[in-house]
């Protein structure tokens, strides 16, 4: 299959799946199902965006919580204090979190000797610093203005369902586009050997900045969509460490560094949490902890890579050249 046809098939399948999911709420599925799918979309967005930075470039981030919370509060603050229409607060939230990533990246990515672990540590620090700033200023939370339903058939849940779906599809599309482009190759080269990448002319600083900003911007959008959906934005809900940890677990479970992995892992884990724990927070954490250990030991390469290896083994040898 040629690359152009491959791209065409990918684009077509994304469009078809998106259209089906878009009309799903109008086919009479339950309110519970709508809110469940909405949470799937948000988690998949978080996992996919984490993978763009950490899966592709190898720089492990624990900063998703910082960006998710900041995105949610950027949306709430501009909505509540500045009366910015809700839909405008979403790009603002993305700009705020991308700006935070750029600020942190300029400091940490420039220091040549402080690589992986140091970066991971600074993302943890960013999480605490940003949550403290928010708690000090808006510790009691913010109640956002109501979003108006457009016309009789598009109710508020439908609006947020659609927003989350579109965000999720956009994240996946960006993730695939990066994966298949020269930009993606640069990221993978940095992941495998940063010095060797520099030696053949790849500007690692610039590429890491791009990855970090794209990733954080998507998380900021997700935070804003979540804020509008729950309407009451409270620091302890949006600065929950689960927003850093779940996407990591989802991506590793699905297959880190592939574009399919985080989608697979996001869907599977959100479903498991819903079925087993019914969204119960403490149970979720117990499941998270045990799963993290089990996945790391039994399945470090992820479901997708495992399936791929299995498929290559059963596929006739003559067809192995793509």
């Amino acid at each position, binding site marked *: 299959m040629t690359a152009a046809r491959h791209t065409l098939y990918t684009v077509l399948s994304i469009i078809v799946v998106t259209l089906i999911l878009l009309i799903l709420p109008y086919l009479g599925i339950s309110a519970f199902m709508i809110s469940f799918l909405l949470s799937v979309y948000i988690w998949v967005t978080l996992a996919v965006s984490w993978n763009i930075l950490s899966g592709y470039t190898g720089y492990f981030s624990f900063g998703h919580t910082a960006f998710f919370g900041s995105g949610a509060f950027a949306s709430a603050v501009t909505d509540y204090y500045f009366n910015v229409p809700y839909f405008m607060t979403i790009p603002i939230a993305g700009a705020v979190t991308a700006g935070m990533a750029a600020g942190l990246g300029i400091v940490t990515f420039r220091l040549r000797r402080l690589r992986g672990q140091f970066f991971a540590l600074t993302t943890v620090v960013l999480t605490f610093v940003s949550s403290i700033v928010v708690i000090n200023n808006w510790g009691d939370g913010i109640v956002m203005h109501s979003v108006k339903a457009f016309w009789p058939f598009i109710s508020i849940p439908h609006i947020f369902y659609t927003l989350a779906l579109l965000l999720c599809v956009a994240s996946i599309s960006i993730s695939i586009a990066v994966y298949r482009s020269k930009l993606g190759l640069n990221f993978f080269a940095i992941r*495998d050997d940063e*010095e*060797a990448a*520099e*030696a*053949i002319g790849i*500007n690692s600083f610039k590429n890491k900045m791009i990855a970090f900003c794209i990733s954080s911007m998507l998380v900021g959008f997700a935070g804003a969509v979540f804020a509008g959906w729950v309407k009451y934005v409270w620091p302890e809900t949006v600065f929950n460490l689960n927003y850093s940890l779940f996407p990591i677990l989802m991506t590793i479970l699905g297959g880190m560094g592939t574009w399919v992995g985080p989608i697979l892992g996001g869907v599977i884990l959100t479903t498991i949490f819903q079925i087993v724990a019914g969204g119960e927070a403490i149970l979720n954490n117990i499941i998270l902890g045990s799963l993290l250990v089990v996945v790391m030991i039994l399945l470090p390469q992820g479901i997708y890579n495992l399936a791929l290896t299995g498929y290559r083994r059963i596929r006739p040898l003559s067809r192995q050249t793509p």
Partner: protein
Amino acid sequence: MMSLLKLSNVSKSFGGLKAVNNVSMEIPPNVIVGLIGPNGSGKTTLVNLITGFYRPDAGDIFFKDEKITGLKPYHIANKGIVRTFQLTRVFKQLTVMQNLMTALNSHEDFQGKVSEILDMIGLQGKANTVAQNLSYGEQKLLEIGRALIKNPQMLILDEPASGISPTIVNKLSEVIIELKRLGKTIMIIEHNLRVISNVCDTVVVLNHGVKIAEGTFSEISTDQRVISAYIGE
């Protein structure tokens, strides 16, 4: 004669150790230069200085009469000096073809270039093999291929023949000579003196960070300072 690469009084210390001490040299275009010396004589440090991985404490480096001292490695690579590493550093999780493509600036006409390089390094049948599944020697060739696809004016090879089979060493010598024919300038660090004597036009000898001799292989192999550096007083 205009020099392609010029080092003037370059020095680099690590703590109290003078790894490279006041080294000057000029490399004209289209030659193969060998850089030899005992272990710890500063050869790899010198390469790191030329390619921007280290910044010299003193002295300047010029490439095509342009000062490149202190530029970042990727910047120097894009100016036309590409290096390989002593222990091969291919991108292990990428295929041979992807490894080659990382060094290109765009996707345009990559297929022609990739197959040309694959022919040259003899890895035609392995374009879709993941690099970590290659033998060590093949990885070395791939690393050279990845440097070549950038079409650099100058190529610096850090111990290309270490740890690989004699057949691949021969293949490597062929590739190096072919590159000179194509107009490239090549600097080779190597302990395998047979390779050095086979391919190099001139040889520079370092000892304790100081340049102690420069000349053709037969000249330096009779040089008393070189012999004592290698064998001892």
